[in-house]
């Protein structure tokens, strides 16, 4: 694992442990993608929407790592009067476009933005569990109908759906909705650097591991929204910081 991947994860685990809130499983599955988008992919006119808002701590951590939020703000996460918390709220100062936390909203908003801004690319990161929401499929119909190629939906397939309504075969479903489906390894930075719009409406099916980077959290549904004990925190930090 690259240094930045470990550093981001250590910050996430520390913030969740100290501030006693956060969805660790999803944050650790999606953080590499969020970093790649913000560090290398988003051009000045491009827009980013986090639709799986429960991974907010991963987004704030990436913004902190890249110096895009004020120093020290990460420590206010979920505290009184903070503007950053368990699910993001629209905030111009932080460049957070959409209020999320309720699933199945981001893709429709992306569609509106894509229509209004044909010269921008709109990147929207969703969850696989989120794809249980019917509104996601309404939006896929709409995007395919209008052939909106400047939307880049990225589905963080951390296998949450195996606990709920099964999505597989997801690529068939996307094909049937006139989308191309592009599988990608969501923990491979070289692959993530290649993310971009396609010739047709296209979605990335990003294969990830829930809780990635901390051995005892990986693939464990129990870590969906669990706060580590002191011993667990120390064990996790030992793995991440050595």
């Amino acid at each position, binding site marked *: 694992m690259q240094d930045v991947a470990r550093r981001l994860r250590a910050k996430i685990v520390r913030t969740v442990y100290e501030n006693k809130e956060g969805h660790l499983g999803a944050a650790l599955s999606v953080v590499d993608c969020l970093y790649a988008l913000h560090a290398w992919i988003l051009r000045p006119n491009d827009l980013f929407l986090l639709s799986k808002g429960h991974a907010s701590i991963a987004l704030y951590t990436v913004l902190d790592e890249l110096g895009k939020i004020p120093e020290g703000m990460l420590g206010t996460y979920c505290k009184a009067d903070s503007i950053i918390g368990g699910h993001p709220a629209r905030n111009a100062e932080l460049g957070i476009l959409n209020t999320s936390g309720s699933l199945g909203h981001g893709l*429709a908003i992306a*569609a*509106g*933005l894509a229509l*209004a801004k044909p010269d921008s690319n709109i990147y929207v990161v969703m969850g696989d569990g989120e794809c249980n929401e019917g*509104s996601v499929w309404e939006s896929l119909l*709409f995007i395919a*109908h209008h052939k909106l190629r400047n939307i880049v939906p990225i589905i963080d397939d951390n296998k949450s759906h195996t606990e709920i309504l099964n999505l597989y075969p997801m690529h068939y479903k996307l094909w049937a909705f006139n989308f191309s489906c592009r599988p990608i390894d969501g923990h491979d930075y070289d692959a993530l650097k290649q993310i971009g719009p396609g010739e047709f409406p296209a979605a990335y099916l990003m294969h990830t591991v829930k809780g990635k980077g901390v051995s005892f959290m990986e693939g464990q549904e129990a870590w969906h929204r669990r706060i580590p004990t002191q011993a667990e925190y120390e064990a996790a930090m030992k793995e991440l910081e050595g």
Partner: protein
Amino acid sequence: MRRTLAENMLKICETQNAYFLTGDIGSFGLKPFADKHPDKFINCGVAEANMVGVAAGLAMSGAVVYIHSIVPFITMRCYEQLRVDAAMQNLPIKVLSVGACFDYSTMGVTHHGYEDLALMKSFPNFRVSVPSSPVEFKEVMLASASRSCPEYIRLTTANIKGYNGSPILREGTGTVVLSYGALLQDILDVCEQEKLSARVVNMSCLKPLPDLKPLLSGCERVVVAEEHFANGGLGQEVGYQIAKEGYGVDFDALFVKDYVRSYGTYDDMKKAAGLDKATIAQAIRGTQ
């Protein structure tokens, strides 16, 4: 009012970046607008949740966005999208509904709309209006285009003549009747036919509610009649204001009490719901 949508949109687009999104109704009527601004008219299909999100995305880009469908589908089917995308994000999304109360009487109970005002009023930052005529509707719609808040405008078949900006449609003494939409015409007719001396007030702006004091002045009795359920309607709001401000007037309210599961004309529905002229007359006289 629906017939004026295209004309109003053309006017708004003379000066503003505005979109009109429909949930697959009214495309024919909107054709003059769609022909002139094909990129500003979007038929979003029968997918209201997505339509609200698309409206939010367009609004984030700096546009004012009108969205249009039948009451139950544009308010209830996508209520949580309106809550998060329009209300919580405080975006200029303007919801234009048709099918107020029993306007789709023959279509049956799924197409009735008597909960919408309560739902839309519950969003703290929404403005809520029920214009009394196409003339007032034009004024309301054009004004909405330059406000940054989300709004709900209930289109009706109402066509009260002589709109001049004053809420008082008929002066009177003793009793004041507060209402909105097409029921205002029935109330005006009843007052003439039965020679009732009531004052009749057009409460087209339901949120923010105007100051009631000047509207109630000199009257001892207030009657609210509305095409809506009691919960969250105008009657409850007026009753609350009377109690809070200590106006010391008698109060009565007529409203839809239950789903009307039968079919018939708009007048048949009103009779079934207890909003017919005879019942209104009794309420105004205080002999109910």
